[in-house]
């Protein structure tokens, strides 16, 4: 047996393992620090197949094995003409800052990004003030010491935990994934033949990741009576294995919106997901804008070339 085939066995067992390992998020979403991957001897994929317990778990209820397909939301940034909704990104950032950021890092996002075009576009003064409210580790200074200083717009958001071990120690073994590219690191299969349509102009669907995240956030439920959850686990039908280690992060009114948007779980979930999409794809707007120009030009260009070609070939029987 070799790795390629082991993966399929693994597919079944990975879902099973979630119930055994208390670190649900860790198992499914881990972003282990690079330092760690350097030190530990990497086991082969074959070693990781948890074969013995697979049979025993097979008998469990069907609903436990398969997660639900995410709901489809109406995103302002979907489609060829899609643009981010600035107000939504600002609200989403507020949710991130007041809720998510206590556990999730967002290490690739710099404060300055918040005022750049195509994002929430906070005024630069506000961003400077925001950055200054964070303490950033810097150094060494002339005396050879490391020190804390107020943040600058060019700094990136400092992580809530110094390292993976610190996060696990504080969060009952869970390691929340970094949120910088999470919206692109999640997805689901629409299956044949829908996946073919997802690429087509007019039907294009690229929002699998945000749909999944938004569904997950508002999807927490009480577990069905036949499902026994271990301590520190929660039931969410959108999560692979339907178990998640993250306690329900959102509740009505937990974040105060100043723009009059409803302060509901659904609204928070949508706003923070949109924010995560922007963090994962900060140049989406300029990319699509340039793309429209490029495709429009090419279409005209093809037409001109085609008629030139016809003219040139008109005298040649072919």
């Amino acid at each position, binding site marked *: 047996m*070799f*790795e*390629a*085939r*082991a*993966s*399929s066995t*693994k*597919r079944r067992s990975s*879902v099973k393992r979630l119930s055994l390992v208390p670190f649900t998020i860790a*198992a499914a979403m*881990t*972003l*282990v620090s*690079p*330092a760690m*991957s*350097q030190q*530990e*001897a990497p086991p*082969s*994929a074959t070693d*990781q197949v948890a074969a013995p317990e697979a049979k025993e778990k097979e008998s469990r209820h069907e609903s436990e094995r398969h997660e639900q397909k995410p709901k489809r939301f109406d995103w302002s940034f979907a489609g060829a003409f899609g643009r981010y909704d600035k107000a939504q990104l600002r609200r989403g950032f507020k949710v991130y800052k007041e809720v998510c950021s206590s556990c999730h890092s967002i290490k*690739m996002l710099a404060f300055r*990004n918040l005022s750049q075009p195509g994002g929430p576009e906070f005024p630069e003064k506000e961003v400077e003030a925001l950055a200054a409210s964070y303490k950033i580790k810097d150094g060494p200074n002339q005396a050879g010491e490391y020190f804390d200083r107020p943040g600058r717009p060019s700094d990136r958001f400092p992580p809530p935990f110094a390292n993976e071990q610190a996060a696990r120690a504080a969060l009952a073994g869970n390691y929340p*994934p970094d949120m910088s*590219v*999470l919206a*692109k*690191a*999640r997805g689901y299969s629409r299956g044949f033949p829908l996946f073919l349509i*997802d*690429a087509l*102009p007019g039907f*294009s669907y*690229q929002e*699998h990741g945000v749909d999944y995240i938004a569904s997950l956030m508002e999807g927490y439920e009480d577990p069905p009576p036949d499902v026994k959850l271990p301590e520190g686990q929660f039931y969410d039908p959108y999560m*692979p294995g339907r178990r998640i280690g993250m306690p329900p992060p959102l509740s009505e009114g937990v974040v105060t919106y100043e723009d009059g948007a409803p302060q509901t779980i659904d609204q928070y979930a949508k706003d923070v997901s949109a924010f995560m999409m922007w963090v*994962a*794809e*900060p*140049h989406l707007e*300029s*990319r*699509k804008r340039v*793309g*429209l120009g*490029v*495709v429009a030009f*090419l279409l005209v*260009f*093809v037409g001109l*070339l*085609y008629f030139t*070609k016809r003219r*040139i*070939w008109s005298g*040649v*029987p*072919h």
Partner: protein
Amino acid sequence: MEGHSQYTPKSGFARWLERRLPILSFMHDSFVSYPTPKNLNYMWVFGAILSFMLVAQIVTGVVLAMHYTPETTLAFDSVEKIMRDVNWGTILRYAHANGASMFFLAVYLHIFRGMYYGSYKDPREVLWILGVVIFMLMMATGFLGYVLPWGQMSFWAATVITNLFSAIPVVGTAITTWLLGGYSVDNPTLNRFYALHYLVPFIIVAIVALHVWALHVTGQNNPSGVEVKDVKKETVPFTPYATMKDAVGIAAFLVVYAWLTFFVPNYLGHPDNYIEANPLVTPPHIVPEWYFLPFYAILRAIPNKLLGVTALFASILITAALPWLDTSKVKSAVYRPLFRKEFWIFVAVCIGLGYLGAQPAEGAYLWFARVLSAYYFLHFLVILPVIGKVEKPEPVPESIDASILRGETSHV
């Protein structure tokens, strides 16, 4: 197609250079006066499209290389830096990643065109084999490049593919260790993959030069499969005729390429590759890029590792033997009723294998993959040789002009 150059240097400098290095007449003969059959259809534009894509990949790749860091702790972040902080970085990276897909799309259409019109037959065997070599080098490059972003799929694809070599009896493990630069995929692996990903495209450029050279010696095949008999009557000069037609093809191809790059750039990618490589977590489902899926399906269809790997390589190498496996004297499928049907079945089998390569290798999927893999090899080893013997071809036109008069070519 060879003959005296029709090029006459016009300027004093051109005359001076021509006597010392006849590069101007060479370019003129290759890309201006080079005779191309009049009846080529739009399936003949993929050669030009592939040349364009090769250059596009090298140009975007060289610029990306200026910003990329081939070191395991930095690679993933450096790619994200390109996406965030490098001017035009998002577009550059998406153009390169989707460019690989478009490159393979074009090469598959190019290969299937060659199969349909019998372009591999006498006297174009060497031309065809050089094409197979280019295809294999492209696969190597595509695989090496996929590892560089150092996401989960990068890492595990590298693990799976390098592991294939351990199937070789006796020396397999030693070879794998040598390839990896260690006992598992790690920093030395990433470093050498980066070096090789930069190197192999230039080897491709060299083989492409040979491919074009061989093409210019034998001349192009054409939809009728009948060789050019009268160069004056049956061909047109490459410029402006073929250049213009190729330009239409390239521009139309670019529309699709631009759509992918600008609007659905992650459609052909896997979400897991936005998770940084982690040797301790195996992705639930390891899948290669779409263009490797048919071969991946063949690999997994066989329950013995050594045989699976052998089948994988054989499935690619067997195409090099096509000129001798196809026993029919008639080149073009246009006049081969049986082969024509078989060709489309074969295309469907390849697409089917591609679909199965993306599914878990279990249950019914596995059995379908086995049936289709068997058919894939039967096509080459049994069906083609037999069809060539038993088939009664339709009357082949005497010349390209006769084919045009019959109205067998399109007029677009």
